[in-house]
């Protein structure tokens, strides 16, 4: 029997899944590969550690599930986090670590560019918000502050391009990952000359640009042998984690949006038109040449829950983040919607969409003498979700959204899903037993194999039942508080700046 393997290269782990051709999960493995913080503002990953972790996890998956189940691997398809940059020399040897999306070293360059005329034009053409996350800003930083590395660089890769090159010797970058570099014109799908000039690089310094269904070359003989795979195993380049999660939830066409809540989060829609926003609040990434995944990212999702659990959770039992989050949700469910007037601004890590203010801070507001610890717990969760709603609401200025799906380890917690339904006043669906990114990756691979006619058809087969229906009374309560939340988020901007200048 044939099977499909999906590999997700994330910033903390590599996840590998095996699916049969109908999309049933055969098995999965997860291998940890940390983000390294080698200096203030620095977030990096060791590309070779990533590669070995990927190989080892893949090998474990094969020996544990695939080979004993007598499956033949027909396709391996990839997804990865966006915005990574890895410089390699002419032999393909990495010059230092890969710089990941959360790296902030290019913040000054990004801000200056954002405020300029060129910045505005680039945003419109590339779809990527001008932010230190974007490879455009990172490469420009290298040009200015890491001249030696910049000079030695033969190619600027994404982490996925590097891993694929290890396996097949080809330097490739798919449309999705390329569209998140800030260097690609997403209208004509060519590298943008002005962006390249700003970064000080040539087209030849980037990998070859290919659609996400492209076969990325042949698996080298040595890996066929060590993994026990046949020579005809197809390696498909695939897309980015964000696009895959959106596809995996079947968010194709009008009316639907998906909310991902991991450590950070995003609200996304998918469609044939990009979102044009003169305030540069959204990203527009390519799934295919005529399909855009658009939306807004937040810095403050699971990280904030985890922070709260760590600082204020009960220490009765051994601390496991899963248990502790569970306790948190349980405590929050004892308080009614609106936390009896306690509000929380969740901007512990600054904020991206929709306020795009790196100086933003967290704050509890509306505290009175009756509030107890449990109110703080609920207010914290509500605050994070108001932040998410704030993105959704801005998206609704451009798109009509009638239903939602949620994914990610925090989004699928039942209290969170329920609260999202109430706050948005829309039904919420979710994939109960699988991982949206990997399922999206399966859909891409299966489409490439001809199981589905095209991605549209593939997405349409995804039927997620509505698990949570909105409660009107709760929604009205939430909206009263959200109004204050929205006002505080903008009103406090001058104070955010003052405090950022102090410490």
């Amino acid at each position, binding site marked *: 029997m044939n099977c499909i393997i999906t590999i997700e290269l994330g910033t903390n782990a590599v996840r590998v899944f095996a699916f049969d051709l109908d999309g049933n999960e055969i098995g999965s493995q997860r291998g940890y590969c940390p983000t390294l913080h080698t200096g203030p503002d620095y977030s990096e990953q060791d590309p070779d550690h990533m590669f070995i972790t990927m190989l080892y*996890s893949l090998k474990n998956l094969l020996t544990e599930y695939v080979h004993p189940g007598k499956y033949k691997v027909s396709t391996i398809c990839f997804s990865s986090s966006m915005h990574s940059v890895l410089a390699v020399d002419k032999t393909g040897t990495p010059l230092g670590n890969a710089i990941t999306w959360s790296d902030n070293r290019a913040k000054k360059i990004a801000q200056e560019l954002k405020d300029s005329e060129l910045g505005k034009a680039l945003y419109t053409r590339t779809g990527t918000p001008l932010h230190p996350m974007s490879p455009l800003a990172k490469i420009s930083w290298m040009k200015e502050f890491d001249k030696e590395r910049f000079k030695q660089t033969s190619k600027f890769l994404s982490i996925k391009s590097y891993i694929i090159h290890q396996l097949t010797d080809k330097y490739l970058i798919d449309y999705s990952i390329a569209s998140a570099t800030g260097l690609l014109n997403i209208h004509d799908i060519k590298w943008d000359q002005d962006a390249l000039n700003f970064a000080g690089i040539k087209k030849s310094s980037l990998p070859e640009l290919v659609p996400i269904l492209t076969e990325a070359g042949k698996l080298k003989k040595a890996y066929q042998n060590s993994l026990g795979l046949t020579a005809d195993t197809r390696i498909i380049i695939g897309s980015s984690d964000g696009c895959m999660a959106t596809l995996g939830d079947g968010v194709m066409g009008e009316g639907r949006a998906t909310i991902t809540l991991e450590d950070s989060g995003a609200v996304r829609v998918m469609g044939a038109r990009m979102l044009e926003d003169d305030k540069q609040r959204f990203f527009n990434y390519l799934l295919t040449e005529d399909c855009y995944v658009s939306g807004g990212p937040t810095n403050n999702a699971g990280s904030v829950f985890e922070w709260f659990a760590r600082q204020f959770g009960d220490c009765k039992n051994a601390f496991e983040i899963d248990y502790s989050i569970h306790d948190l949700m349980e405590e929050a469910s004892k308080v009614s919607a609106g936390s009896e007037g306690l509000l929380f601004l969740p901007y512990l890590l600054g904020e991206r969409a929709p306020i795009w203010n790196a100086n933003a801070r967290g704050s509890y507001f509306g505290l009175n003498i009756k509030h107890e610890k449990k109110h703080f717990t609920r207010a914290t969760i509500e605050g994070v979700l108001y932040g998410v709603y704030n993105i959704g609401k801005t998206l609704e200025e451009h798109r009509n959204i009638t239903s939602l799906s949620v994914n990610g380890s925090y989004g699928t917690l039942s209290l969170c899903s329920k609260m999202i339904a109430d706050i948005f006043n829309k039904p919420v669906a979710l994939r109960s037993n699988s991982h949206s990114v990997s399922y999206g990756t399966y859909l891409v691979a299966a489409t490439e194999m001809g199981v589905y006619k095209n991605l549209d058809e593939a997405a349409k087969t995804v039927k997620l039942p509505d698990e949570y229906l909105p409660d009107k009374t709760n929604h009205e309560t939430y909206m009263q508080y959200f109004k204050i939340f929205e006002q505080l988020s903008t009103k406090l901007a001058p104070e955010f700046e003052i405090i950022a200048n102090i410490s």
Partner: protein
Amino acid sequence: MHQFVFQQGLSGALRPFPHILEIGVKKIQSIQLNSFPESRADCFRIFHIIEGKFEWCINGKIYMLFPGDTAIISTGTLFGNSKNILEIGSIAWLNIKLGDSRDRLFAAGSNSGLNTGEQQTILKVLLMNSMPVISKLTETARILHAISYELQHQEIGYLTRVSQLTDEMFITLTRYLSHQKDPVRNFPQVFMQLEQELRKDLSHQWTVEEMAAIVGMGSTMFNERVKTFTGFTPLNYLINIRISEAMKLLKKNNINITDIALDTGFYSSQHFSTTFKKLTGYTPREFRTNYLTADKD
């Protein structure tokens, strides 16, 4: 405790214990100028505050020490008082000469009941320590007091007791310091620190017990936590790091393969070659050749 000082070389009582350079108790009744200028510690020093309030500068950072506090000053640490004075109060201290290799906790000639692995682990934890002041560690006072008693009375068995007590002192400090990391609550962070330690000393033949001690966990629990957190057993996770480091070194043509094997912690080039091939499909030699012939355009 009464005031006293024993110094190695001057006090016969210390002769059987070459690792104890000095032990003493001092009561400071008036402030004397230049009594405590900042200088580099020439040995490993443990202080216990009995009375008074002291302001010490350790490695450029100011610490307030109160009765019951313990200060741990590693060899080479800059410490003293910023006004050069030792404030009024009383303190007890113990100066230890550490071993000159990473397999020996104490100076040659001293007796320790700790086995080599334990000594290595204790040294690692102490060298990594970034918390020079521990508050309210009553054990330090008890052990210092017991050592002084043994040295002053020299009753039957004191040779054994003193060695046991210095072992105990180091076990106590190590356990305390590694528990401080609160590994259960902060596993991702603690694991990150462990990874840094592993990478710093990759040629070392790490055991699971050592790794567990560094993060302050028992080895059974450590094993489980690492497996759920990383997807790998601790030793397999370590192999990931070893191989990825080896790949980096192989891409540089100037280091020979046996050296790479040993530097990255394999006990022979054969062991390296088999492990490397099992995981990557290539022998280290093939891997290097591929790189050197690749992309020469």
